[in-house]
Every structure is written in C-alpha cells, then in structure tokens.
C-alpha cells in the first residue's frame, strides 16, 4: 500500500521549548491514525506540520511521497488541495455565511457557474445534514453545527487526506456521535485517509468498533459488516515525543501504565 503521510524524524521547537521531538511514522492510503496525548503534548502542532502550516526545524514530511518542508507557500497549494483539516472550533470565517464558507474553496478556484456551485454546496451540506443552515451566519450556529459546516467546507473539494483536530472536544455525546458518523462516512464511503486528534476514548471506540453502512445510513458493528476497512493505528505523544505507536491490538493490549490511563 502506498503511503499517504510519512513523517521522518520531525522535530520542532518554539523558542527554547521542544514541541516535537524526532517524530516518525507512516500512514497508508485509506488508513486511520488516532493521535492521542494530554493537552500540550504537541498533537495540534503535529497536524499543522502535516499540512505545512508549520515548518519543522528538521526532518521530512512526505505527503503522497512529496516532501513539503522545502516547498514555498505557493508550491504547497496543490498539495493542500488534496488535504483537508477540521480545526478544534471549526475556524469558520465569521464574516461569511454558511453558504459562502462552504463555497470558499470553489470561489478560490474561480468556479464560474453559480448554479453548479450552489448545487455542490447543497450536496456537501446535505452530507453533513446542515442544508437548512445555508443562509445562517457562523455566529448563529452551535459548536457541533459549526464543526459539521467546517467538515462540509473541507470535503467540498473531495480531499484524499482529512485531519481532524479534536473534532468532538467540548460537545455533548449526541453531537459527538454525529461527528463520528461523519468521520466514519468519509473513511468508509470515500476511503479518505484520516488523522484524528482526540482525548475521548468514546471516539476511538465508535470509530474502531463500527463502520459506516451506506445501506443503513448509520454506523454498524465492524465485526458483522460486509466490507472490511483499512487498518487503524494509534500514536501517543508525551512531551513532544512518540510514547506509543501501534495498531488496535497493540493499543488495547498494552500494559504500559501511561497508555492504560487512556484506556480506562
């Protein structure tokens, strides 16, 4: 399987503080990686490094085989078009309506056909079940709705890699499930490579033990599902270093006391 994301010995410091220390991992196409760790362990920074929003001090960040570290802001744009990120609070543009937020990327790509644009915006908003909020402003939306719109804004250009920065952080359990269903939907229907930053074991459980069924339009237990999904990996950061890296089996059966804290 080709690698979608590969990090080789990535290190980054902010002034004298080491935020990422020699991080390396490989994630294949369609696979899912859960980034775990306590607050301030470097998870969000690592996501930004993967997207080229932050440049590491040393190491390589390969996206689909291309190292993005030496690339200029302009040269990064074609790579970024193949990726999407959902920020912790959604990061919707306050001055734009939901429609304009979602259509943002299409406008940047100078899509001239307004009719086709509206159709596409409605389609992705329907995908996240937010079509009714088309004309609303971000200020009128709840936290969960903002994140669903943020997902819609990201997937409008059908990215091959999705990065989620604590997509369920601070949300109620019902909304968390809705967000997780969307992540699973992207993963299982569109075979998107996913990196999910989370501190909730419930997210991990829902996304590992269940798959999205296009037929039933909801999550179904992975054991009984007709289709298998690509592997899921876990990477735990501690003080900017990789503390644990392994697959589902390694993670759930780990006897390390620090890892066990996340499992209980």
């Amino acid at each position, binding site marked *: 399987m080709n690698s979608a994301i590969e990090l080789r010995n990535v290190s980054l410091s902010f002034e004298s503080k080491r935020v990422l220390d020699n991080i390396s991992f490989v994630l294949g196409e369609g696979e899912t990686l859960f980034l775990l760790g306590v607050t301030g362990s470097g998870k969000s920074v690592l996501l930004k490094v993967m997207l080229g929003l932050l440049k590491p001090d040393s190491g390589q960040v390969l996206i689909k085989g291309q190292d993005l570290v030496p690339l200029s802001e302009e040269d990064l744009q074609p790579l970024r078009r193949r990726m999407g990120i959902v920020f912790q609070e959604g990061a919707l543009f*306050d001055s734009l309506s939901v429609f304009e937020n979602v259509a943002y990327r299409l406008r940047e790509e100078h899509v001239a056909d307004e009719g086709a644009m509206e159709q596409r915006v409605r389609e992705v908003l329907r995908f996240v079940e937010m079509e009714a909020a088309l004309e609303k402003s971000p200020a009128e939306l709840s936290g969960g709705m903002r994140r669903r719109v943020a997902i819609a804004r990201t997937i409008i250009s059908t990215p091959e890699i999705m990065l989620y920065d604590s997509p369920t952080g601070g949300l109620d359990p019902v909304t968390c499930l809705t967000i997780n269903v969307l992540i699973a939907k992207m993963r299982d229907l569109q075979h998107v490579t996913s990196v999910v930053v989370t501190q909730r074991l419930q997210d991990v459980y829902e996304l590992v033990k269940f798959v999205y069924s296009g037929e039933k339009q909801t999550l179904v237990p992975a054991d009984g599902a007709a289709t298998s999904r690509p592997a899921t990996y876990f990477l735990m950061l501690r003080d900017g270093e990789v503390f644990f890296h392994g697959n589902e089996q390694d993670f759930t059966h780990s006897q390390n006391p620090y890892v066990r804290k996340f499992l209980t």
Partner: protein
Amino acid sequence: MIGAMITGALKRWVQAVQEFTFLLSDSVRYAFTAPRYLVDTLIQMDVIGFGSLPIVILIGFFTGGVLALQSYRTLSTFGEVGLMGKVVALSLVLELGPVLTALMVAGRNSSGIASEIGSMVVSEQVDAMRALGTDPLRKLVIPRLAATVATLPLLTILADFAGMLGGYFVSFYTVHLTTEEYWTSAYQSLTYQDVTQGLIKPFFFAVIISMVGCFQGLHTTGGTEGVGRATTRAMVVASVLIVVVDFFITKLLVGIGFF
C-alpha cells in the same frame, strides 16, 4: 540578569523589524501579481476610506478653526490679519492636514485592522484560510494596503479643505475678514511644491497605518487578551511612526531643495 533582559529585548526588536520588512517587501512584490482580491480591496476602501470620512472632516474643520483663532492673536499684533488665509492654508496643507488625518485614520483603522486580523489568527481562521489554499498576504494584507494607499491622500485633501473652511468661518464671523480676502490669501500662498509635499506624505503614512495594523494582527498570540494588546500596540506604533516619519520626510524634502 539585566544584561540578558536587554539582549533579549533587543533581539525581539530586531526580529520584529526584520519580519516587518519581509512583510512589507512581500506585500509590495505580490501586489503586482495575480491572484488579486479586487472585491476585498473595494470593501476595505469603503471601510477605511468612506468610514473615516466623518471624523477626518470634523477634525479638519475644527483644526482649521482653532488655527485661525490662535493665529489671529499673533497676526493682529503685527497688523497682518489679512494673512490669515495664508497661515491656515500653509499649516494645513504642509503639516496638519496630512499628519492629523493619518493619526485619525491610524487610531480608527490601524487598530481595527490589527483586531480583525488578530481575532482571525487566534480563532485559527488564518490557518484555515491557508489550508483552503489562500495566501493571507494576498487576501488580508494587500487589499488593506492598497485601500489605505488609495484613500488616505483623498481623505487628506478633504481634511485640508474642511480645515480651510473652518478657518474661513472663524475669519469671517470672528475676525470679520471678507470671503475674498481669506480665500485669495489662502489660494495665492500655496505653491505647487507645497501641495505636492502635502500629498507625498499620505502615501508613506498609508503604508505605515496598514502594514503596522496587519503586522500586529498577524503576530497576535495569547487569545482575546492578545488581540487587545495587538490592537493597542498597532495604534501606538503607527501613531509614533507617523510623527517620526513625517519629520524625516520633511527633512528629506528640505534637503533636496523641494521648497
């Protein structure tokens, strides 16, 4: 201990100057290449230019009036009240018009730009913009720079005129100069060099106002408290730079024999 603190502060200052220079040079360089955000530029022209119009005219009008009142005391000592128009016009066109207009626009817009962009930075909207394939320099900085450069000279002209009008009202109603005396004195005193000097300065001030606001906004850290700090810093830095740069431009223009 104190030595390390001074060294640290100096390093931060040098780094800020370096980053500001890069931001300015990149902005000027990118301003002439595609993609351009014309709609954003027009929106900023409305916000910065049209939005500043009432305060600029009001300040200009009353400054002209005060200038006439103050100069009346001196001019009447020498029996030269008829030069009132000249004093008001020259003071406004050469110095007070450009500087006061720039300070007003800085107070309103440099801080406004810093708070708007700063809020976008702390709420990760700027990162989202980059992730969606937009260069914030082109989308946020260049439209504000272009809009300020385009509108500040026009605002200065209007402030100059409002100031002369304020001076005229004081001269007419308080000093009892005739309309002809005031405006003839004002008109004849102004040379081509005076007007040019008065219009060169706003271009430099416009760059200061917009770039300081954008720089402070883009370097905002520390959440909403940081936005407040960036806003205050933008206004203070822009205002101080305007006065300092005004001195050096005047010195330069005098040095090259512009007068």
